[in-house]
């Protein structure tokens, strides 16, 4: 870089000499990507635009929202009725949360099918899981802010998960609440954290991308890039493809915002919170339902909580549970079928989580939970040892 000292340069040269921003942009422009990426690879950038939309709409909502147990519910209705375009901002933000989760779940499903978590991308996977974890915390606290019945009782149930910790559990829960129950101090701190965490997510996303760019994207064949012939520049090829993905995403997004803004919410949250009455049927937002079903699968509080956290933690062990050298599910005939069974199992858990824990749903919940863990702890290690995989193509470019 020192050789690039320029006497009569442009303003850009002057800046580049002091802060190499332009060569960084050039890296992004030159960044080469496998040429065979399919549309499943669009969901990373779609999740990125989802995060940006949440942050922008959230900043403007925060200008009108009042994080106080007495005024919070009213201020949300005030946004809906009096603030210019307040209804639009709020519906974009509420629907946007669901859309963000859709993108991230598809992004994760892509990774699971094509083995993108395998070496050398384990840390990309870890950072992604960290983002997922932060997202869940942010979404949970955001849902508390309107201070309706679901907000209040959702907050009560989730914070009470920590009371399962032996000995110090109750102390921790009171520390989380700032009182003897979910109340004003709880709402206030949740608002602060809900505003803070998205920026931390942005930081982790950047590290996620830096780690990704070290070895580049995986691809549908799951084999390494052998030569330049296997790749194309990210720009313009994938920028254009991603923009097309944005278009489709925005159409679905707009359908929900303008035609079904409350479809993914819960009507009980339009009732102001009341510490004396629990709604008859507490359900979390749809994106938490599979984990909620796992929590309820065992009739033991501590075990249920441990199981629920394990269902996410087991994903961290995935690169070592699935040791098959073949990354892509396309060349793993048995894995491919069981992958779809696993996805159905997760969707089934979501369905069970939405229903009352009575009768048949208790048994179904247990079977589905058992299968969830069986897939990771038994099926994947077994397959990576005994599955007969199909022959891999010689390179991304070759026909076979």
């Amino acid at each position, binding site marked *: 870089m020192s050789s690039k000292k320029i006497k009569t340069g442009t303003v850009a040269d002057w800046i580049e000499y002091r802060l190499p921003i332009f060569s960084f942009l050039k890296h992004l422009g030159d960044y080469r990507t496998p040429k065979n990426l399919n549309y499943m690879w669009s969901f990373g950038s779609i999740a990125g635009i989802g995060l940006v939309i949440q942050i922008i709409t959230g900043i403007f909502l925060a200008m009108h929202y009042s994080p106080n147990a007495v005024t919070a519910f009213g201020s949300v209705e005030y946004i809906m009725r009096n603030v210019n375009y307040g209804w639009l901002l709020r519906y974009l933000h509420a629907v946007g949360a669901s859309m963000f989760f859709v993108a991230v779940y598809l992004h994760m499903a892509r990774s699971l099918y094509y083995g993108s978590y395998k070496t050398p991308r384990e840390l990309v996977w870890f950072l992604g899981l960290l983002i997922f974890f932060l997202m869940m915390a942010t979404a949970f606290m955001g849902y508390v802010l309107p201070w309706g019945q679901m907000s209040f*009782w959702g907050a*009560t*149930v*989730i*914070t*009470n*998960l920590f*009371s399962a910790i032996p000995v110090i559990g109750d102390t921790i829960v*009171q*520390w*989380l*609440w*700032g*009182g*003897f*129950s*979910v*109340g004003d*101090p709880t709402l206030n*701190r949740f608002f602060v954290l809900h505003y803070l965490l998205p920026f931390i997510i942005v930081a982790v996303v950047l590290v996620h991308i830096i780690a990704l760019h070290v070895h580049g994207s995986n691809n549908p064949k799951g084999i390494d890039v052998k030569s330049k012939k296997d790749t194309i520049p990210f720009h313009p090829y994938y920028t254009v493809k991603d923009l097309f993905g944005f278009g489709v995403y925005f159409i679905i997004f707009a359908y929900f915002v303008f035609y079904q803004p409350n479809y993914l919410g819960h009507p009980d949250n339009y009732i102001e919170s009341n*510490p*004396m*009455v*629990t*709604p*008859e*049927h*507490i359900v979390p937002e749809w994106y938490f339902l599979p984990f909620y079903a796992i*929590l*309820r699968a*065992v*009739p*033991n*509080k*501590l075990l*249920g909580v441990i199981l629920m956290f394990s269902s996410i933690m087991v994903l961290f062990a995935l690169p070592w549970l699935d040791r098959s050298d073949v990354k892509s599910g396309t060349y793993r005939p048995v894995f491919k079928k069981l992958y779809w069974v696993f996805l159905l199992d997760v969707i089934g858990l979501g369905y069970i989580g939405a229903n*009352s*824990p*009575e009768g048949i749903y*208790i048994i179904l919940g247990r079977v589905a939970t058992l299968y969830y863990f069986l897939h990771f702890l038994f099926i994947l290690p077994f397959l990576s040892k005994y599955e007969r995989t199909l022959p891999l193509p010689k390179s991304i470019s070759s026909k076979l």
Partner: protein
Amino acid sequence: MKKSDSAPKKKVTRRDFLVLSATAVASIGAASAAWPLISSMNPASDVLKLSSIEVDLSPIEPGQTVKVLWRGKPVFIRHRTKQEILESESADWKSMRDPESDASRVKPGHEEWLVMLGVCTHLGCIPIDVSTGGWFCPCHGSHYDASGRIVKGPAPLNLIVPDYEFVTDTKIKIG
């Protein structure tokens, strides 16, 4: 790192001691500085200040449950019927998940009054009255008997009996 750096030169120097002790002191300092921040999230002193309430029991009919708010949580006050008392006392409590006799959950001489926190010991929902006696938590399906003891479902403990006393025969003080 150069190879020569990792040569077998294991002698502990005075500099190692300085680095280690300085790091230890700095860590303790950082932890001490974090403590006020963590502690500030605990219940504030006005919240902690023991709040107690008095409740007049005279308007509560047998078979009726009244809910009052105490420390932001509901307290159930149940005027039990003769049959409920009989059932609660004769139940085989020793084989329950959280073994407690009915007598230890009420005040002597006031067996008709059951006073407890209306907060499910599983994850904090408010259980609802069951017409046959007892309570059911709609959130995760915990069942409590007519003495508020856990009989079925994920909750680990019986509904909690708070500290309370009879001021007169028809008035209690909770807290």
